[in-house]
């Protein structure tokens, strides 16, 4: 199926008049007026509906396909969360409307803060960051603010394991810090000796993901915490993998000073083709004064926003209003439906699914990157051997999986494992779905021997064959231009 560009459906003078008000005179000085209309399509309402409905059908999504994209927690997004977060009263609320008219919404957010405190074991939560990366930013900025508030101005180094997600080092830079990378051991744990070598008076802190992005739990986490704290640094927890440990172990209890959570992962708000997300941050005692604002507080029996007046040392505001409120509502609703035992079940079944899938793939002849380790909620397969022996890459496997009706796992991340697939099935997938995925992997492995070209040229059954990324970057075509008449 091919769908034209919406501009190709456009005809001069075509309008969807039910959708805008009658003509009215505008009062703009000539010099400030627009002369030429923008390049927006002139199409009918049916054309819009048909075009975007057809486009939507070109996507893989959780609602249509198994989507084991590692580090992204592509679990079922309950429809109730969307429906209830879109109740008209919530949708029509202006963020600056008086707090008295928003007690319902504020109450939900306050309770969400409380629940996140409980699952993380932290002392304070701010919901305002708009995605994981902004949560990271808030976290590192708070660490800096902490050191600066103590006059400890030399602490500008952020230690980051080599397996870390790209946002970690990028965030450190955005906060004006220097990134110090440390390696991982062959068993997936942090190289403690290397850590010891790099900590010191310049250490602002360390950013860790635990379970790490290698899909294994950092067993010596207490030791790591001790080393960093002893050196005067702080511990940052990248909460992208919270799904693995929900209700089992809490970052606060592991010694972390600050954490961001991807509510769009663990708490199942939509991924929306790229977003929105929410990167709520939790902090320990030391960072409480620095939380980004606004935060929901109480006064008497009313909820209200805490602002710079309440938190004068805050790192400030990160968004125009108060972050992605609608996403927060969805997370709140999800958590209320899971409830106490439901929290634990998330990590239990996510871990069960991952370990089962790993066991089956190993039995089928695939190589785990970390053989003797438990998988967390995700795990890594390396196709290094197949690549060497059969000349097929992890990318070839990924593309061929699409033909079998499965979204590909994350490829080529973490960067330190060659030809890797990072596979995260999540707890909401049924055993049969996992078995089907294993069957596909086995079939593709057979094809890799018998007919490797089938892999190289995959996918074969999608709207387009493999796309030329090099051409895309060299012959930049980033906007459509009308044909010259």
């Amino acid at each position, binding site marked *: 199926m091919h769908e034209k560009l919406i501009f190709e459906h456009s005809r001069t003078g075509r309008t*969807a008049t039910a959708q805008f008000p009658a003509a009215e005179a505008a009062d703009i000085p000539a*010099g400030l*007026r627009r002369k030429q209309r923008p390049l927006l399509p002139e199409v009918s309402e049916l054309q819009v509906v048909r075009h975007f409905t057809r486009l939507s059908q070109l996507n893989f999504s959780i609602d249509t396909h198994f989507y084991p994209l590692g580090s992204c927690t592509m679990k079922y997004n309950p429809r109730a969360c969307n429906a209830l977060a879109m109740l008209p009263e919530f949708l029509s609320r202006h963020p600056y409307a008086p707090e008295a008219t928003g007690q*319902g919404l504020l109450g939900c957010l306050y309770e969400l803060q409380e629940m996140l405190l409980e699952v993380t074991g932290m002392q304070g939560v701010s919901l305002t960051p708009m995605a994981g990366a902004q949560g*990271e930013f808030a976290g590192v900025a708070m660490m800096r603010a902490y050191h600066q508030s103590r006059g400890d101005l030399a602490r500008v180094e952020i230690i980051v394991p080599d397996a870390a997600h790209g946002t970690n080092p990028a965030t450190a830079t955005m906060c004006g810090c220097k990134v110090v990378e440390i390696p991982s051991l062959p068993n997936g744990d942090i190289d403690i000796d290397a850590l010891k070598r790099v900590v010191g008076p310049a250490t602002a802190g360390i950013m860790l993901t635990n379970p790490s992005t290698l899909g294994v739990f950092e067993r010596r986490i207490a030791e790591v915490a001790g080393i960093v704290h002893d050196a005067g640094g702080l511990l940052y927890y990248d909460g992208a993998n919270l799904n693995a440990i929900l209700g089992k172990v809490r970052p606060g209890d592991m010694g972390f000073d600050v954490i961001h959570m991807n509510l769009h992962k663990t708490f199942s708000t939509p991924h929306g083709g790229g977003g929105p997300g929410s990167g709520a941050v939790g902090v320990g005692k030391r960072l409480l004064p620095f939380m980004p604002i606004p935060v929901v507080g109480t006064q008497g029996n009313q909820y209200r926003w805490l602002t710079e007046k309440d938190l004068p040392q805050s790192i400030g505001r990160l968004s125009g209003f108060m972050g992605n409120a609608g996403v927060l509502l969805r997370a709140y609703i999800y958590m209320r439906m899971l409830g106490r035992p439901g929290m634990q079940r998330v990590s239990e079944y996510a871990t069960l699914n991952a370990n089962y899938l790993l066991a089956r793939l190993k039995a089928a002849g695939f190589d785990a990157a970390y053989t003797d380790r438990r998988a967390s909620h995700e795990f890594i397969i390396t196709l290094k051997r197949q690549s060497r022996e059969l000349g097929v890459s992890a990318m070839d496997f990924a593309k061929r999986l699409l033909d079998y009706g499965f979204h590909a796992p994350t490829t080529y991340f973490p960067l330190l494992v060659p030809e890797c697939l990072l596979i995260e099935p999540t707890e909401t997938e049924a055993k049969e779905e996992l078995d089907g995925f294993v069957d596909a992997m086995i079939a593709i492995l057979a094809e890799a021997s018998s007919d490797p070209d089938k892999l190289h040229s995959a996918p074969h059954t999608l709207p387009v064959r493999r796309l030329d990324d090099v051409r895309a970057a060299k012959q930049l075509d980033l906007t459509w231009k009308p044909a010259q008449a």
Partner: protein
Amino acid sequence: MPFIPHTDADVRDMLATIGVPNIDALFDEIPSSLRCGVLACIPEALTEMDVGRLMQERAAQDGRPLNFIGAGAYEHHIPAAVWSIVSRGEFYSAYTPYQAEASQGTLQLLYEYQTMIASLTGMQVANASLYDGASAVAEAALMAVRAHRRSTSARILMPTTLNPVYRQVTRAIAGNQSLNFEMLPYVPGSGTIDATALDKWKGQDVTALVIQQPNFFGQLEDVDALTDWAHANGALVIAVVNPTSLALLKPPGEWGQKGVDIVVGEGQPLGVPLAGGGPYIGFMTTRMEHVRQMPGRIVGRTLDLDGKPGFTLTLQAREQHIRRSKATSNICTNQGLLVTAATIYLSLVGPEGLERVAAASQARTRELVAALTKVRGVRAVFNGPRFHEAVLTLDRPVGPVLEALAVQGIVGGYSLAEHYPELGNALLVCATETRNSNDIARYAAALASLLS
């Protein structure tokens, strides 16, 4: 179990395959000293029905007051088709289109969005979104510093007519990288940038000048002169714009002799509900020469193995997952679903519809100002052309008046007391095409009786 499909038989089989006796054994690498107990503060699970009732009650608490605030978030009509398509699972539950071939729907839509938003702002290229308008200004400031190779001052001139929260956010985000933000005052009568104040920086190294049009007061700035001043002074220009207004107003790409260098803004007015403050859309466009300094995802059109056109993420070498600590930004997850809404919205209204929405909004605000300034004790503060927002002053403190209005179901405006104390009892009000004459009359009557 809610959302978990496993039967007892499944669990038994799976544990046997793994070779462990029970699920808990899978957590045996976690030191037992760290294992936590029950999460006592988490309430018991609710069914969907019960959480539904709970949320309905919460929503009913808040009601649906009649809104006259803009101040960065605008209540426009959103066609029913927009969210019925946006909520389709294929858009709602997909993620970043890393596997291009399995994500052509999202990718083509983003390419269409980039085209629309670039054209609307009069620029050459757009990214696929930033978080929101405020953080987009911060990203623009950082980008300007990277893009302006000849400037070393990292000095950004920010007018006080720029949304004060945008200024705060820009400081909070970009401040960590030692940017210097310097303030540019406004002329009390017109509520627009005081051009004479620019003399102070004449001949100095200025990295960029920020201009918001319409500005936070709703007033229209003399964007041509300001842009030309900046360029003449060797500075880049960052425009902060309201996308609806661009149906009527000269696009930043045409400001002054050369047009601006970076455009950012809040995309919320394009089909995104107010929703208590988010999720919204930060948009950004620039000239082709700066494309490699842009933060955020960018979609490009290319060809597949058969030579058929298709779409893919491109210029990824700018991004954190490739460039890591040297990336243009740390942004990863963006506001994709909202961009979906904006693209559908813009397609539905088209160029003529957007123009009519803008003109009607301006007319309604004109009507609102006329009606409210007839109330004794209310007057308009600034002269000169404006879009769909206006600053009024009252004869008494604004806060209590707004609270009294709220009790009557009217959200009467945004108090400027905190950010602009020099304006006295000032109030920023707004009416879009969604407010009709009855609404305005209702507000005016309520205000009159409160101020009488």
